[in-house]
């Protein structure tokens, strides 16, 4: 578990005091809104549809129970009793008052948390695989590198005024659970033939108005060069990224307009200037950071292999949950647990203050005090002994948090949409709720199998609809909400942008449309083990287009 060092404590304390001063000067009139707005954005304070919104950083989605309790307290004392987990592993509060934000930041600072660089044209939260440090399939834990990038990017004086926001994601496994190829920089840890650690470096991915998949700029970057190379990429972006047009300002556009070879050449030339200097990361320095992420003192589970199986055969709900909501751990006697924040009919990714406290208690009791937030808006306990699973499940069941839908149709991503967001054109949460209720039957979801539905309320794609197996984009058509459906998107190592199938659907029609797509898949799949995305790649659009629109 990461232990914050002096860097963070002083940094956060100073920044909180600074923002407290800025708020005071805004309220007293010494700062106008025009002057204040960029300052509040650098501290994650938005003005949204109904109120201010505060986006708190959860570095690479990792937090402990003390931090989760502080988030619960903020929700309870300063907000309306809940928070929302985002597709960048952060948390959002929808109703903070500006006058209270300094006090909120003080509470966050007490557990080394903050809201810095969660908005604005700067490097944002570095995200990572939510099973980092636990998954059996990872080459190495990506979090130390995410932390190194975080320290480097926090208040980096050269990159405080980028052409636009900049997002980085890191995965430690070949199976990409961090959506690295739809990030500005995506990093995959790997070993070369000599067994040394390094990165595949992908640049120029992103969703939004112009979805693009990242391109490979380096097949193997030695770990020692991680910061120097990242600095080179950022410098090239900062120098050449467009500042004339907000919609063409991301590095993905720069790459698209410049071309891969030329941009790579620029990056490599800059890297030659930067490398072998102060940004070099010697092995022992990386080791020093890795020590902060040392695995917990795992407690051996009693080696009764039947214990869990017996409980599963006696409790069908537990059996279903076990099947879906546990993930293989590097230790045989442990698993990672997904606490689905997608209960039937609920807003995806929301947690009440009481639920946050409850999760904190579970993490302290059964999870070695470690919690993760996934970019799919779920909560993860990365380390749980198998022998504790039934007790944990029973506790979750009692709180309505044992929905056994991880990776199934009910496990949807939805942005806040027009119910909350000033940028939105349509509502997304009611669509998720309606789909969730239509497909509530857990046996039906199990039959359908792996399915990722992702819903955005506008083209900014915070709901990741471009990379949903089924993507739903809400638009405004002559004052009415209309929902466009895309098919075949994927955010893993086979990243793909979904293709729009045809004309959009009303709020009433889109749930039926999803049902027709699902039924079509079920009717044409080769077997129960051919999942939706595999079947789609085999048969293409036509059967699905026909199901939705007839033989037009």
């Amino acid at each position, binding site marked *: 578990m990461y232990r914050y060092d002096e860097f963070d404590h002083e940094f956060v304390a100073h920044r909180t005091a600074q923002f407290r001063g800025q708020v005071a000067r*805004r*309220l*007293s*009139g010494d700062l106008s*809104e025009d002057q204040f707005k960029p300052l509040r954005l650098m501290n994650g304070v938005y*003005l949204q*549809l*109904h*109120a*201010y919104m505060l986006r708190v950083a959860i570095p690479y989605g990792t937090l402990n129970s003390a931090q989760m309790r502080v988030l619960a307290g903020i929700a309870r004392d300063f907000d*309306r*009793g*809940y928070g929302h987990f985002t597709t960048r592993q952060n948390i959002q509060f*929808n*109703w*903070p*008052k*500006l*006058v209270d934000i300094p006090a909120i930041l003080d509470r966050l600072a007490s557990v080394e948390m903050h809201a810095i660089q969660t908005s604005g044209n700067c490097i944002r939260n570095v995200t990572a695989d939510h099973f980092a440090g636990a998954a059996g399939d990872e080459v190495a834990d990506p979090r130390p590198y995410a932390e190194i990038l975080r320290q480097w990017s926090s208040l980096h004086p050269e990159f405080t005024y980028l052409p636009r926001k900049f997002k980085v994601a890191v995965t430690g496994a070949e199976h990409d659970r961090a959506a690295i190829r739809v990030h500005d920089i995506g990093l995959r840890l790997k070993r070369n033939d000599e067994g040394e650690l390094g990165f595949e470096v992908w640049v120029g991915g992103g969703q939004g108005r112009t979805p693009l998949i990242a391109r490979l700029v380096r097949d193997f970057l030695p770990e020692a060069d991680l910061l120097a190379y990242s600095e080179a990429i950022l410098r090239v972006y900062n120098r050449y990224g467009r500042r004339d047009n907000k919609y063409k300002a991301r590095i993905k556009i720069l790459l698209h307009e410049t071309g891969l070879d030329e941009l790579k050449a620029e990056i490599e030339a800059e890297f030659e200037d930067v490398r072998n200097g102060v940004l070099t990361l010697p092995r022992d320095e990386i080791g020093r950071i890795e020590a902060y992420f040392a695995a917990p003192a795992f407690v051996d589970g009693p080696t009764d292999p039947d214990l869990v199986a017996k409980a599963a055969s006696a409790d*069908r*709900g537990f059996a*279903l*949950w076990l099947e879906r909501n546990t993930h293989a751990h590097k230790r045989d006697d442990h698993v990672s647990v997904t606490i689905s924040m997608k*209960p*039937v*009919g*609920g*807003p995806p990714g*929301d947690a*009440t*203050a*009481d*639920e946050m406290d409850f999760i904190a208690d579970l993490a302290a009791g059964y999870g070695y005090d470690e919690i993760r937030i996934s970019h799919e808006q779920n909560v993860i306990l990365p380390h749980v002994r198998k022998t504790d699973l039934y007790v944990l499940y029973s506790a979750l*069941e009692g*709180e*309505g*948090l*044992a*929905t*056994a839908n991880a990776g199934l149709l009910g496990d949807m991503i939805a942005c806040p949409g*027009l*119910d*909350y967001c000033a940028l*939105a054109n349509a*509502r997304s*949460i*009611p669509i998720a*709720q309606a789909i*969730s*209720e239509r497909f*509530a*039957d*857990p*046996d039906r979801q199990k039959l359908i199998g792996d399915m990722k539905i992702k819903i955005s309320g506008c083209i900014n794609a915070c709901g990741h609809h471009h990379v949903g197996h089924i993507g739903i984009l809400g638009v*405004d058509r002559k*004052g*009415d*909400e209309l929902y466009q459906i895309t098919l075949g998107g994927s955010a893993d190592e086979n990243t793909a942008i979904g293709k729009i199938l045809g004309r959009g659907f009303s709020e009433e029609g889109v749930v039926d449309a999803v049902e027709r797509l699902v039924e079509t898949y079920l009717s044409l799949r080769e077997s129960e083990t051919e999942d939706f995305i595999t079947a789609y790649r085999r048969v293409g659009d036509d059967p699905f287009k026909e199901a939705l629109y007839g033989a037009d």
Partner: protein
Amino acid sequence: MQIITANRLDSGLVVFRTEDGGWSTEIADARIVDGDEAIEAALEASAEDVRARIIVDPYGVPVVLEAGAPVPVRLRERIRAQGPTVAYAVPATALADRPGSRRAA
């Protein structure tokens, strides 16, 4: 036909300009403003309240009258006036008990 809306600086809450030039969180209290000149005047008066640090970002919202009360023409403005159309802070246990939804068997 419009009403003037803004956000309070201190709380961020959505407010509407009332008959007496104050700001209410209730759209029913909003003063109806008709015609370009009147709207312009109302916006100018609102700019004063921006300078006085009461509100930020005032603007006019086209409305229709329904049973005498102003209702925004645009969905976005209706949601902004009335709040999210979805319930929030509902415990998962309460969701599961709603008709039509089912917990894992």
